[in-house]
């Protein structure tokens, strides 16, 4: 088809790439500038005198902003890692049961779990805050992780269920004939085959955790558990923080998800499509 080589195609592809990266580029440019260079006219489209000062301040500075950013970076890593580990473990067990066992109430349970995906997040925001507050779990990692896990489980169960269902049952039957218990079959035969599905689920769950804002905004009101997203939003409102320093903080906040998305995009794409279609 001649249209595949049409010069407009290349232009269009170029625009798609520009659209996707220009905001990131502009933040990176600004982060490498001093505040006065960023505000200079005519505007510098490239950093003419690049400096790493903003990153140096964030990573080793002793000011409130720098210390807060580093602490909230640690918080977000802890919260996302814990939520991902719990979500994937619990979802894998349940998804396997849903995919391979016949038991009373299976369909009702399965569709109930999936139906909670349709709840808009703010339906449960206020009650979850009140429950966490009753149990003394506001401003704790446990509180945040519990809420994240409850939100991420349905999609994880769905993606892993589809993955397990796609594995031929003959492998498990052979294992059973060889005398393995059902959990041995799961652990030694099914899980190794499901590794790609588990990686997809883990990466997507981790990215969801990293993107959270409204829930941690409500559930963590101080620096002890605030993730980077919440702290950055709070700093944005304060005009004492220079815009170039904010850009550097923004880059710090997107570094991990951006690297994950670029390096593992095959896993993410296949996981998203498994979770959204059928």
């Amino acid at each position, binding site marked *: 088809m001649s249209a595949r080589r049409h010069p407009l195609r290349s232009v269009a*592809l170029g625009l*798609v*790439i520009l659209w*996707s990266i*220009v*905001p990131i580029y*502009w933040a990176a440019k600004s982060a490498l500038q001093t505040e006065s260079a960023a505000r200079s006219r*005519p505007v510098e489209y490239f950093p003419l005198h690049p400096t790493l000062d903003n990153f140096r301040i964030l990573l080793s500075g002793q000011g409130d902003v720098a210390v807060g950013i580093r602490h909230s970076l640690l918080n977000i890593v802890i919260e996302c890692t814990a939520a991902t580990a719990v979500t994937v473990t619990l979802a894998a*067990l349940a998804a*396997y*049961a849903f995919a*391979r*066992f016949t038991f009373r109430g*299976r369909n009702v349970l399965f569709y109930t*779990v999936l139906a*909670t995906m*349709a*709840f*808009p997040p*703010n*339906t*449960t*925001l206020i*009650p*979850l805050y*009140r*429950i966490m507050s009753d149990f003394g779990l506001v401003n704790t990692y446990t509180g945040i992780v519990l809420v994240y896990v*409850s939100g991420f*489980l349905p999609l994880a169960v769905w993606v892993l269920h589809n993955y397990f269902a796609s594995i031929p*049952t003959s492998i*498990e*039957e052979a*294992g059973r004939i*060889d*005398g*393995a*218990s*059902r*959990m*041995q*079959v799961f*652990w*030694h035969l099914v899980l190794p085959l499901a590794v790609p599905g588990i990686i997809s689920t883990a990466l997507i769950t981790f990215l969801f955790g990293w*993107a959270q*804002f409204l829930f941690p905004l409500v559930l963590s009101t101080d620096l002890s558990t605030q993730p980077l*997203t919440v702290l*950055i*939003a709070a700093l*944005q409102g304060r005009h004492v923080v220079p*815009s170039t320093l904010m*850009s550097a*903080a*923004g880059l710090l906040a*997107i570094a991990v998800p951006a690297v994950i*998305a*670029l390096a593992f995009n095959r896993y993410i794409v296949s996981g*998203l*499509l498994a979770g*959204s*279609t059928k």
Partner: protein
Amino acid sequence: MSAPRGSARPTPRAHDVGRGVVVEGDRFDGATSTPRPPRRRLDALPYVLVAPVAIFIVGLALVPAAFTIIESFFKVDALDPPTRFTGIGNFVEIFQNHTVMNSVANTAFYVVVGVGVSTVLAIAMAVLLQHPFRGRGLVIAILILPWALPGVVEGILWSGIFDPNSGLINGLVATFHLGAGNAVLLGQNQLLTLALIEVVQVWQITPLSTLLIFAALQLIPDEIYEAAVVDGANQWRSFTSITLPLARPGIAVAMVQALIATLNIFDQPYVLNGAASTGASVTMETYFISFQNLNFGQGYALSLLVALVTVTLSLVVVRFVYRKVEL
């Protein structure tokens, strides 16, 4: 645990499964390959596997949702105790509240523009990527980048683009002599503010829509297009008569995800425009009512309404856009 195959157990043993019920282990309980075991033999293993998820879903999704539904009919106000039944009082107050109604109008703008623009863009991008070419994998990797980033931080990135002093847009305006190039873009004019906030959200939600439509397009066999060319159809005709109808399942799911995201928009206006009413969304008002005014009852009522509208509109989209495709 011992290795499954090396273990010298010629016949599987019976499993002890609690409650004193014993199930023969010589049958694989595959959902598809074997008949159901007799009723009286209760097999506990699947319940044990499902239990943790069920506890989470009941305790932290269903119970909270029930709370929202019930308490939206109660006056739950930390500044005006005690909690008491008020019937549809909260709902009436919401509809009489001008700030809330303004946020409803703003959110309607976000939904219409966001769903429309992201879907059109996603169809265009998916068609662009439909047929394999060198470097397609890399383009897809770059394309999904905005989806993977937190909405709040995207607000920060784009505030760099919109900034009156150091922003890209004003810089370009000055460079190309289109004006002085120090215009305040956000917060000045309501329509422009809403549009720019929605640009940032479209940036975030279009990648997933593109992927969903792209996946639907991958199922269309090349022969259909070749047959259309033989029949004299031009590019546009192929697009409207083959691509669009066959992509409808993908387009429907893409529109639903865009609908849910735009109806519940919070991060982008919160970061880009603060508490200003020019850009405030319904979710933002829910947050302010609940966590600043501490009027939980009204917050419940508002979030219940948003949930109902989300589910209803999602069903409408599925009803009118989704078509089962048989190839």
